[in-house]
C-alpha cells in the first residue's frame, strides 16, 4: 500500500516519542508553576502531527494553534529553545516574549502558532501564495482543530486557497471536542470533509492515530500541492488524552471514552506494528525511547537553568 520505507517510520517513532516526552515534561513544569498562562497539550495526537508535519520538506512552512509545540518539534525546532520559550527565557524561540501559544521558528519553517482560533489559516494561505508568486516549490501546511471550522477565518481562507489553486495542505485535527464542546453540538456534518468540499477542495478523512495512513494521504497532498495541483483538506480523527488545557476538569467526557482511545495510542500502534513486521527490535525501540527521554530531559534542564530576558527587552521588537 504505502511506498514509504521502514526508515521513516523509525524516525517518526522517535519523533512521536520526543513530542510525547516534551509534552509530559511541559506538564510537569507547568504544574510546578514555572509556565505562565494556560498550557494546551497534544498528548495522543502525535500520529496526526508526525503523519502530516513529518511529511513536509525542510523548506516547507507551517502555522498551527496553541497546541503546537509538537508540530514545531516535528518541523525541526530545538527542544531547548521550545522549553526556554514556555519558561519565558531569553534563549526561547521568541526570546521569552511569546510563550507557549506563540511559537515562531522561521529558520525551520515554523511561521507561528496562534491563540486565536482560525486565525492561522488565512496566514498559511498567504505563505502558499508567496510560494506560488516566487515560483518556489515549497508548500504551506496549516493545522487546526475541529472547532476552528466554524470560524469565519476558516471559510475565507479555504475559499481563497481554492480559487487561487494554492500549494497548501489543510490539516483538521478532529479530536472530537472544541474545549468542552463535543463536535456533535457544533456541526451537523458526519465528516468535516463536507466543509472543504464546499469550496471544491479535495478532502479526505483518515485515522489520525495511524501515522502511516496519515503520512500516505499527507504525502499525496503535499506532492499535489508541489506540482501546482492546489490545496487538499485532510481530516485526521484523533483524540487528546489530557484536558483542553491543564486544569480542565473534563466533566464533558467519560473515563471510558478516554481509555478506549488510549488503547489505540498512535505510538503504541506504531511500536506494535514495527515489532510485528520486524522492522525494528524491541531493543532498538527501547534505545530510541531512552535517547529521546534523555534528550528532552536535558533540554528541559538546560532551559530551566538559562537566563531570563533583560527588562529593556520588553520594549523592543514592537514594530
Amino acid at each position, binding site marked *: 500500500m504505502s511506498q514509504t520505507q521502514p526508515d521513516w517510520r523509525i524516525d517518526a517513532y522517535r519523533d512521536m516519542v520526543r513530542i510525547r516526552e516534551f509534552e509530559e515534561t511541559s506538564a510537569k513544569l507547568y504544574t510546578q508553576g514555572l509556565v505562565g498562562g494556560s498550557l494546551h497539550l497534544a498528548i495522543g495526537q502525535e500520529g496526526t502531527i508526525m503523519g502530516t508535519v513529518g511529511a513536509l520538506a525542510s523548506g516547507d512552512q507551517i502555522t498551527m494553534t496553541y497546541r503546537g509545540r509538537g508540530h514545531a518539534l516535528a518541523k525541526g525546532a530545538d527542544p531547548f529553545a521550545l522549553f526556554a520559550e514556555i519558561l519565558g527565557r531569553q534563549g526561547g524561540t521568541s526570546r521569552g516574549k511569546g510563550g507557549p501559544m506563540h511559537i515562531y521558528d522561521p529558520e525551520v519553517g515554523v511561521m507561528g502558532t496562534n491563540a486565536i482560533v482560525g486565525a492561522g489559516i488565512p496566514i498559511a494561505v498567504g505563505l502558499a501564495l508567496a510560494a506560488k508568486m516566487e515560483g518556489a516549490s515549497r508548500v504551506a501546511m496549516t493545522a487546526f482543530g475541529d472547532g476552528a471550522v466554524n470560524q469565519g477565518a476558516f471559510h475565507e481562507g479555504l475559499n481563497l486557497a481554492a480559487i487561487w489553486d494554492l500549494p497548501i495542505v489543510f490539516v483538521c485535527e478532529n479530536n472530537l471536542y472544541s474545549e*468542552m464542546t463535543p463536535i456533535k453540538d457544533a456541526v451537523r456534518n458526519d465528516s468535516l470533509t463536507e466543509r472543504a468540499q464546499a469550496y471544491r477542495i479535495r478532502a479526505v478523512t483518515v485515522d489520525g492515530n495511524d501515522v502511516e495512513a496519515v503520512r500516505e494521504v499527507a504525502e499525496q497532498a503535499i506532492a499535489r500541492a508541489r506540482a501546482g495541483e492546489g490545496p487538499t483538506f485532510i481530516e485526521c480523527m484523533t483524540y487528546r488524552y489530557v484536558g483542553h488545557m491543564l486544569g480542565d476538569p473534563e466533566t464533558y467526557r467519560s473515563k471510558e471514552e478516554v481509555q478506549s482511545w488510549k488503547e489505540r495510542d498512535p505510538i503504541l500502534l506504531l511500536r506494535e506494528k514495527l515489532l510485528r513486521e520486524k522492522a525494528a527490535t524491541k531493543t532498538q525501540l527501547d534505545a530510541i525511547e531512552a535517547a529521546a527521554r534523555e534528550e528532552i530531559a536535558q533540554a528541559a534542564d538546560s532551559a530551566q537553568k538559562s537566563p531570563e530576558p533583560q527588562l529593556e527587552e520588553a520594549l523592543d521588537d514592537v514594530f
Partner: protein
Amino acid sequence: MSEISYAQALNQALDLAMAADPKVFVIGEDIGHHGGVFGVTKGLWEKYGAQRIIDTPISETGFLGVAVGAASVAFRPVAEIMWVDFTLVAMDQIVNQAAKTSYMSGGRVKVPLVIRTQEGAGRGNGAQHSQSLESMFAQVPGLKVVAPFDPADAKGLLTAAIEDDGPVLFLEHKLLYNRKGEVPEGRHVVPIGKARVRREGSQLTLIALSRMVAYAEEAAAELAKEGIDAEVIDLRSVVPLDMATLEASLRKTGRAIIVHEAHQSFGWGAEVAARLMDSCFYDLIAPVQRVASKDVPFPFNRTLEAFVMPSVAQIVATGRSLMNDY
C-alpha cells in the same frame, strides 16, 4: 449582605435577571454544562436549560449577530465572549451593528444587548490573551462601557446593564473573579455612569478602573505613610464618564493620577485628562498624570509582563513627584 466572590456576584445577577424576565438569555462558548471557563454561568444551565443558556460553536461573529437580532425583537441577550481579545473577530457586529442600530433606525429598533467578557494582564497569557480594550469600545457612539472592580458593583452593574435598553460592553477582569466582598442579596442595581469614591483624600486624586482600583488603594495606603492624603475613585463606567465626581475631586485636590491597564497611548486616561484640563484648568496644580501599560504588546515572561503593566510603586512615585515637583 453576604461575602461572595466577584464570579458569584455576577452569577447572582444573571440568575436573578433570568428568573425575573423570560426575555433574558445567555449565549456563548462553553457556558452551559461547563458553566463558563471562569465559572460565571455555573448552575444556570441546570436551572434554566439549554434553551436559555445557549452553548455555541466557535463563531463570535455568528453568535453576536444572533444576539443583535434577538435583541432587536425585545429579547435581552447576555453574550459571553470568552476573552476580550476575541471581540476582535466580531468587531463588526459590535461596532457597526449593535452600537449603530438604534441610531440608524431613528430609534425604532433598540438593541438591549449585554456583551460580557474579561480582560487584563498579569497571568502570563501572552499578547493575544492579555489585552484591555475598553478604550477601543469607548470610542464607539452607541455603546456603554462598564468595568466593575468590587463584587457588589459587579452584581449591581450587570443588573443595570441587562435592564438597559441599549448595548453595554461589560468588562470583567480575569484576576478579580476570586475576589470576595460583601454583596447585597436579591436584586441590586448600580447605575451605569456613576463613579464611586472609595477613599476620601484632600491632596491627590487617584482615578482607576477594574483591577487597577486595588493598585490605587494600595498606593494610597503607601502615600498616607508618607503623609500624602490621596482620594481613590473607582471609575466603574468608562461610558458615560462621570465627570462630575472627578471634577469635584480635582477641585479639591488639584492633582490627579489616572491608572489603567489599557496601553497608555490613546487610552481612556487621555480623555479623562483632556476633559479635566478643560473643566478644571485653574484648579490644576500639576498636569494630570497617567500610569498605564507601556505601549508594547504584553510579553509572556512574567517579569517583563509586570514591567509593562502599571505598578503600585509607579503610582506612589508619581504621586510623590506630583506633591514635590509642583
